């Protein structure tokens, strides 16, 4: 039980929770039981069936409703006399500005993605409000951290791995892993057939390139007037799995050191028509589009089964038919969604057929869905533990009990007998571009890269800005906002298409540009360095952001880290950003697919913090974790972002 002093701090606190998902449900419950009286919750999501195994405040009857609102109502049922204010909204919406954040004594994150986390971090820094951050990845090591401006590191003091991207040609021409087939099926084929027709699509470009003759001037992906759905499906099938592969085979050079793919035509796999289905699909009219299923029509039940080529072909054709027949109005603006059953079926089948063509092992729908949706493994127990740890830290923050702040790891395998391992928070990284405003540098070919590339790949993806404003000296190059003059909008749109060196105020080697986000109240300076060549495989962005480095290790930290493996394995780790209620999922290259399938978790073998600093640690004043008997714990965790850090003094 909390002390009187703690209870007072708790009762008078105003708390902001961001996220009402896996951690959020547990957190809200624990906050309320602990005596918190004034809680605000932001969550843009609605409830889905796959949430119910751990988001215990929700019931099946709540599916489709706002998480923040249902969570509030559920909690009020057992503790009616408290104030809970729900916002069914995106935390990046402009109403949640610095002034809004300033109202709170502490902000608690139960977020699912890097982007929102960075956004909240910046707002907390600008508003000078402490942030307790958390994340979970199933049974893997996960942590709760406290970020207090000027006292401990901010969320971005260590570079965060950004979502894995693959070289375009691996996806379009030379897939070697199942994940490449999934990316092709989801981001190219699915997007081409069902998404925004005006969007650039490499599938389009490549197939048109390949078809130099005029007969292919028409877009093969367009359905012809009155064309039978199955015929259309077969035409697409034969084009992408047959014709395109034949064309690709024509380029001998490509296949010198690779296995040649084999073209697949629908008539060879399925000589007879797509036979009568069992009519189950008609039920979907009642249950809504997300339950429509080609599997049901074809009487395929178990999502864990791996379909053969014939089954995949049937699913491909049937799913396409259902989209055309039953969901015609969605076509043209669909975005792949892991909770859209028919979309998952189509992508699984397409990826499998492509995999068969390239001699890559096929996968079940369950596995394919995990890969395509970047699904995070999530269970209730870990969320509950993390939520408990968050509340413990939040209470310390309210009492400004700075010396006792801890970053706590929740471990799958005990390390030094511990399942919950507290370490002291790290001090701010002096070279952090977010909380220390250190300039960054960008290597870029200023004669080739357009301002658009810079905005998309660097400002949005790498710097996580929401409403950016880009300046060169006093000249405005680009800006986003609702209240812009028309001529400015036109001006900026024109700038986007110009290469950097040809902008009205040219950006060349040595130029310093300033990028600012007015909502996040965050500014950073970038030194431009011109570079001619970039490695397509290693540097697919065609530009490299530098200076976003870890704090230089202190002399003795090398001892603490113990072995050199941590840095190298960190660089090998490919990270896929999750869209679920939990954390980023860390998938080391090579075992990503296995890991996502949820059976073998090699990662866990290397993820435990191992080394510790012996008693002879010198230089810094030794501060111990917890009581007097234990030595300071340092971490060597090669798989996450914490491989080397400084301790708080």
């Amino acid at each position: 039980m909390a002390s009187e002093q703690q209870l007072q701090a708790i009762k008078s606190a105003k708390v902001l929770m961001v996220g009402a998902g896996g951690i959020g449900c547990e957190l809200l419950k624990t906050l309320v039981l602990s005596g918190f009286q004034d809680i605000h919750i932001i969550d843009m999501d609605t409830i889905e069936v796959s949430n119910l195994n751990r988001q215990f405040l929700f019931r099946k009857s709540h599916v489709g409703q706002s998480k923040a609102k249902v969570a509030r109502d559920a909690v009020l049922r057992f503790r009616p006399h408290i104030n809970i204010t729900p916002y069914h909204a995106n935390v990046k919406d402009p109403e949640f500005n610095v002034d809004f954040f300033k109202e709170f004594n502490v902000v608690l994150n139960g977020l699912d993605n890097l982007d929102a986390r960075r956004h909240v971090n910046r707002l907390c820094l600008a508003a000078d409000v402490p942030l307790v951050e958390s994340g979970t990845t199933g049974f893997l090591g996960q942590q709760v951290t406290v970020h207090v401006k000027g006292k401990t590191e901010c969320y971005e003091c260590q570079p965060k791995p950004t979502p894995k991207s693959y070289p375009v040609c691996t996806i379009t021409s030379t897939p070697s892993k199942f994940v490449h087939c999934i990316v092709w099926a989801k981001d190219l084929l699915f997007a081409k057939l069902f998404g925004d027709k005006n969007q650039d699509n490499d599938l389009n470009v490549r197939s048109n390139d390949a078809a130099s003759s005029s007969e292919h001037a028409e877009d093969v992906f367009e359905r012809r007037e009155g064309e039978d759905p199955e015929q259309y499906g077969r035409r697409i099938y034969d084009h992408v799995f047959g014709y395109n592969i034949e064309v690709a085979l024509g380029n001998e050079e490509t296949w010198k050191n690779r296995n040649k793919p084999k073209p697949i035509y629908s008539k060879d796999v399925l000589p007879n028509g797509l036979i009568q289905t069992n009519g189950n699909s008609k039920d979907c009219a009642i249950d809504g589009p997300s339950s429509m299923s080609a599997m049901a029509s074809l009487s395929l039940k178990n999502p864990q089964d791996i379909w053969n080529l014939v089954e995949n072909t049937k699913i491909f054709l049937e799913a396409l038919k259902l989209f055309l027949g039953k969901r015609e109005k969605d076509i043209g603006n669909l975005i792949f969604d892991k909770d859209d059953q028919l979309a998952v079926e189509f992508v699984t089948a397409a990826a499998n057929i492509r995999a068969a063509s390239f001699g890559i092992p096929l996968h079940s729908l369950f596995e394919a869905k995990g890969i395509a949706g970047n699904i995070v493994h999530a269970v209730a127990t870990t969320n509950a533990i993390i939520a408990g740890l968050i509340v413990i830290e939040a209470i310390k923050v309210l009492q400004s009990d700075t010396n006792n702040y801890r970053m706590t790891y929740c471990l799958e395998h005990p390390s030094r007998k511990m399942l919950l391992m507290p370490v002291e928070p790290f001090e701010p990284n002096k070279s952090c571009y977010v909380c220390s405003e250190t300039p960054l540098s960008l290597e870029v070919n200023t004669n080739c890269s357009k301002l658009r590339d810079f905005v998309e790949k660097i400002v949005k993806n790498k710097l996580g800005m929401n409403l950016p404003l880009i300046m060169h000296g006093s000249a405005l190059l680009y800006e986003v906002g609702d209240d812009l003059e028309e001529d400015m909008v036109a001006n900026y749109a024109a700038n986007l298409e110009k290469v950097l060196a040809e902008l009205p105020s040219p950006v060349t080697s040595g130029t310093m540009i300033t990028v600012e986000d007015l909502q996040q109240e965050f500014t950073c300076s970038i030194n431009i360095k011109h570079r001619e060549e970039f490695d397509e495989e290693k540097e697919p962005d065609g530009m490299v952001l530098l200076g976003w480095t870890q704090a230089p290790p202190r002399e003795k930290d090398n001892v603490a880290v113990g072995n050199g493996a941590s840095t190298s394995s960190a660089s090998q780790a490919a990270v896929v950003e999750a869209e679920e209620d939990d954390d980023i999922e860390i998938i080391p290259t090579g075992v990503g697919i296995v890991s996502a399938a949820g059976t073998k978790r090699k990662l866990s073998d290397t993820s435990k913090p191992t080394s510790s600093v012996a008693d002879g640690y010198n230089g810094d004043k030794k501060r111990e974790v917890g009581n007097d008997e234990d030595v300071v714990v340092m971490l060597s965790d090669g798989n996450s972002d914490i491989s080397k850090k400084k301790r708080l003094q």
Partner: protein
Amino acid sequence: MDGEELTEQETALYDRQIRVWGVDAQRRLSKSHILVSGITGTIVEFCKNIVLAGVGSVTLMDDRMVTEEAIWANFLIPPDENMPSGRSLAEVCFDALREFNPMVHVSVEKGIFDGDFYDKFSAVVVGRCSLATKKRINDICRKRPKRIAFYAVDCRDSCGEIFVDLQNYTYAQKKLEETVECQLQYSSFEEAVALPWRALPRKMSKLYFAMRVIEKFEQDEGRNPGETSIADLPSVLKLRKQLCEGQSMNESNIPEGLLERLLVGTKEHPPVCAIIGGILGQEVIKMISGKGDPVKNFFFFDAMDGKGIIEDISKPE
């Protein structure tokens, strides 16, 4: 396991956790039956976790009436139930718990049972209870023909203790690339607490000793567990001296401040309930699924230092 498949409904609901522990473990879970006795905030957290995980059934036992203290850290009980309603704690919790997962069978049993009543359970979990009760139920679990796992849990102030007895437990341990069969031999609660303190590792968690002093004090005084206050401190310190002398251990291993916290903080600290209930849930899931290294045989958490520590207090094999 047999070839029975999960239903479509189960696959959809359990999608995210099947990605953690696999279909096979999910199937085993759905065939497991858990008996829970003595409902506290920590036990409620635990029940929520295993109901969500999809065990086959949960049987609740607690004949006590609902009191203000009982609902302190209990999110299953709405405040209007805090009135004499003639319904027991178990009955009131039953309603809310079953809603968490319609696929889990939740039920209530009344009275005290012995012998073959226990045979249908895979695990028995007892919340805060007397030393005698812990020993008695642990003993029953050990005497049944089929192995029944036994767990005892208690949270006081911002501290928590879990005891685990899996008797003779074999599981597949993953070591880097290979999987090896691993066998663990557990001691009963009675055997564990009877071990001479001097023989235990030097850095043993102080909470272990402090809990034994409080437990002994309550037994000697005929108190219900948790029926203590600051007024008991002098007697408890006397007992500490007596026990430490008998065990030839320095009294400083059981700090007065810690004893005071355990005596005074009889209400559970909700964040600690979540943590201990979460760890306990994980342990029961590990045991049923046969996946992961189980705790052998004590787990301690103290929010003051933030450590969650495993201690092995077993009689030598």
